[in-house]
């Protein structure tokens, strides 16, 4: 598969170099929100939304910064863009789908300080993706995040019913599970040639 193709970028971000299990981005929400399948799915959906919007905006802002030769303002601009993107997405969803808004609840504002979004913007800049590659990257990253979240929440829901020693409960267990998942995902290396 051509490494610059949209499908490879999507596959790479989603599975081969999964954002959570391989690149260590978005661990905080991954630990915090992976308790139930329902909330996990909603968080994942919110993240995909925000990633697509932020990715597009970051691409535009970066082009502007490079033209004006003020690249040292990039980090600040990205943060501002992401925060605004989250606000916009929130207002948009509130207006056009109040049901979805209620379902997503507090997750949207929480995403602002999610390192996965900023990481997405930084990586796409570093790899110098064009606009469509950025979108494919964002879709893959969000999809991969949701995938990891769904798997983890399924596992944790099952484990809730099991007899787990107190010492391991909570973050320690989630991390060890994440390690096993990460190990499993390493098997995807070389996918797509």
């Amino acid at each position, binding site marked *: 598969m051509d490494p610059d193709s949209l499908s490879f970028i999507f596959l790479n971000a989603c599975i081969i*170099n999964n954002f959570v299990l391989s690149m260590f981005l978005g661990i905080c929400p991954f630990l915090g929100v992976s308790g139930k399948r329902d909330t996990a799915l909603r968080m994942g959906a919110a993240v995909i939304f925000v990633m697509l919007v932020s990715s597009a905006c970051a691409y535009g802002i970066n082009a502007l910064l490079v033209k004006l030769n003020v690249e040292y303002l990039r980090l600040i601009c990205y943060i501002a863009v992401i925060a605004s993107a989250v606000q916009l997405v929130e207002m948009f969803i509130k207006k056009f789908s109040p049901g979805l808004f209620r379902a997503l*609840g507090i997750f949207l504002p929480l995403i602002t300080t999610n390192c996965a979004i900023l990481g997405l913007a930084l990586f796409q800049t570093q790899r110098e993706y064009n606009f469509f590659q950025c979108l494919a990257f964002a879709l893959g990253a969000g999809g991969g995040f949701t995938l990891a979240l769904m798997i983890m929440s399924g596992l944790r829901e099952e484990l809730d019913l099991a007899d787990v020693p107190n010492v391991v409960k909570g973050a320690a267990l989630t991390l060890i599970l994440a390690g096993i998942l990460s190990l499993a995902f390493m098997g995807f290396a070389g996918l797509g040639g």
Partner: protein
Amino acid sequence: MTTATDTTPAPQAQAANSFAMIRTLSGIALVSGVLLALVYQATFDIIKANKEEAVKNAVFAVLPGLSEAHPPVAFGLNPDTGELVELASDGDVLAEGFEKIYVGFDDAGQFVGVALPASGQGYGDVIRVMYGYTPAAEQITGLKILESKETPGLGDRIGKEPFLDNFRGMDVKMDDARESLLHAIQWVKHGEKTEPWQVDGISGATISSTAIARMLRESTQRLLPAVNAKLDELKDAG
């Protein structure tokens, strides 16, 4: 979502509030912008020198017998159009389609060879390398990994011996028409190398080592004809 209970202040107080908000944010933004511009200026030269040092080290690592007295000269080469542009300094930005190449000279100021770039997707992320090419002997003289995120202990063996030995004296002879290589660079399984244009793979690091072979094959096929076409100009740069 519950709406926060808001004691709506009187209009004057609200205006004062908005003013305070704008004042704070713009004040901090201004100071921050100035501070960053200062730091950027202060570190610009150091960072530039660091980058040039790194490039020089790479060029010296891939071409034999280079001289400090005659530092490498940077060029921009467009393999599709065959255009060659000499760069005033290594930091110059290249136009679309151009790749940066470096010409190396020995103590006598004589042309030694050209250091060429190659890159491609490895196991972890994109791998960037530089390799040295001597048109006289029609060989690759060395390879240096510039950037790689390969697996430590396995894939990162592409940056170590004995893998790097593959690229000392690698045959990249061209055909009589000087349009393409006689033998494309080929990856073979570890221990099965018989020809000087083959890359002896690393067992346990198949993806990383095939990636190197692939990117060199592509790069040589793309750049070597253009380099040979402009050889006289490159030799004169010393």
